[in-house]
């Protein structure tokens, strides 16, 4: 008998009384001003949130980013905001993205309670770009803010292969004496544009 059968048999050996799964539909927290809550939550984890009317306004804000003027290699999947100069489709190996300065990508849901944005690898050849870029910019429709994680999962589907993540702020560590350092392995900054029209 292999380990699979061994383990399953050992698990089954103890007949436990069936305990029903609890309901997830509860009166979870809601916010009067979801936008303000999202912006505050994101800021508290080291990210930056900007509310903008459209692509041009976002581009103008992006130009204010302290690292923008020095950026050389830019990946953008949101041409309405800015055109990139590195087309992922033509990159055969994600290791070649090592020197990407900025990645401007789309997020589909923003969560007010924790400042997280849901992103996926749909239509994205190399998911590495989320983590390997020095600076990350996510563009999210302003209407896509939900109050809490329960609402977020109601919108998510996991049919078939793929990658998806809640990203909340830039990469960080506090592993040296609990001193917070932004930019552990991944992006050193994270900006979220909540955009009205796109």
């Amino acid at each position, binding site marked *: 008998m292999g380990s699979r059968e061994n383990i*399953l048999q050992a698990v089954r050996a103890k007949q436990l009384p069936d*305990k029903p799964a609890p309901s*997830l539909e*509860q009166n979870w927290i809601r916010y009067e001003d979801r936008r303000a809550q999202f912006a505050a939550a994101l800021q508290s984890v080291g990210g930056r949130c900007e509310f903008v009317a459209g692509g041009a306004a976002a581009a103008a804000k992006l130009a204010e980013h302290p690292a923008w003027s020095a950026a050389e290699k830019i990946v953008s999947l949101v041409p309405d905001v800015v055109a990139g100069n590195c087309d992922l489709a033509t990159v055969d190996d994600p290791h070649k993205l090592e020197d990407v300065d900025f990645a401007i990508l789309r997020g589909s849901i923003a969560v007010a309670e924790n*400042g997280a944005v849901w992103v996926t690898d749909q239509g994205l050849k190399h998911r590495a770009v989320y983590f390997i870029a020095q600076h990350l910019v996510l563009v999210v429709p302003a209407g896509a803010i939900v109050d809490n994680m329960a609402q977020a999962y109601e919108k998510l589907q*996991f049919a078939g292969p793929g990658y998806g993540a809640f990203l909340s702020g830039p990469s960080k560590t506090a*592993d*040296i004496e609990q001193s917070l*350092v932004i930019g552990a392995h991944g992006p050193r900054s994270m900006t979220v544009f909540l955009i009205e029209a796109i």
Partner: protein
Amino acid sequence: MSRNGHSATVANVGHPALAEAFTLDRPRARWHDETLWFVRSKRDKAAWTLPEWELLRETASAIKAHTMSRLAEYLEQFERQAQKLGVTVHWAKDAAEHNEIVLGILQRRGAKKLVKSKSMLTEECHLNPYLERHGIEVVDTDLGERIVQLAGEPPSHIVLPAIHKKKEDVGEIFHEHLGTPAGASDPLFLAEAARQHLRDKFMQADAALTGVNFAIAETGGIVICTNEGNADLGVSLPKVHIACMGIEKLIPRAADLSVFLRLLARSATGQPITTYSSHFHGPMPGAEMHIVLVDNGRTEILGSDEFRRSLNCIRCGACMNTCPVYRRSGGHSYESTVPGPIGSILAPSRDAKLHGSLPFACSLCGSCTDVCPVKIDIHHQLLTWRKEINHRGLLSLSKRVGMKLMSRLFSSPRIYAASGWLARKIVPRLPRFMLYNRMNAWGKRRELPEFPRESFREQFARRKNGKGGHGK
């Protein structure tokens, strides 16, 4: 390099002796205590932002209880769904089989360099030294884990692996191994040096190994939570991703994550959510993904009515941060992969003889139970373990004799009253050497309180007789 100081290879000298060694450096021990308490306070603040905190804990606990009641079904469902997504699923009954499976995958692919993100399971299985013996370079990429790996130590905390190190220690380790200037100890500078060093490792890796925070039966996906992004960066570059998990990591539905992800980071560090909460469903296009499901003693715990709930742990570390004993004795004093209150339940389940001192490293204050996001009755289980250890005859001699005397004393009201009277009369007059000596562990760095002149019973009798006091 391999790590030393592990419980599996070194004779266990018990918690009290190691805790004593830790407390000798008083400023450092105090710093450790205060830092963890600070993390605990951040957890409180984060919990208080949600009016539904207690409901979340209830719900999480109920989801876990439900999952355990049908674990076999959920494991099978998870395997089916993961396979549909193109994942190769492996089963390992123990640490040795787990290690062989991982090595086998690496050897088949000709992989020589492995980057790892945090995984307590692989610590438990002592995977690193095993792989290194077989010529694999293993790099822990979580900064805290990298620090202790370079230092040749195991982590001392499950969320904050290098919490026992001061920045000067880290500076020295990096000076020796990464070539940073001697004396450099600024955390910003050191973290940047580690970033550059580990980027190289990420770029060169042939394969990546991760732990698993949650595995979703319904979808076959796994979820990994980090702040550094090291798991994500690690697995998105090479063509092989190996994810190792204990069988207790299962949850039934993706939507259950809405409960666990709200609890995990708030309980761990006081953040509203980890920076990266990544859902992996199947391998990247053109790559392969392996999931290793490991038992290694878990089914045995599952079979125990007393200790089954200890499997519900989501490894947030909150019980460690709040524990007065852990904070003052340090993680290494437990000689167990998972230290602190929950580790003191899990370790004796593995080997009661080796880890028999751990359930006694506890004041039964119950703070762990209060903060546990999945409502494990930690301190009750610790008490149960004490009885069990006594029952199995594994108690140390001094504890056995002491307990016998205590039970005599408490079961006879007359002896109890008489010895109280004697103590009040005699102890205050005894010379110091008779009170503070080797026989009295409680007298180490602790002064006796002043003894009252009368016992409660004496006071009560006097007041009932109307002789003074504040009575009518």
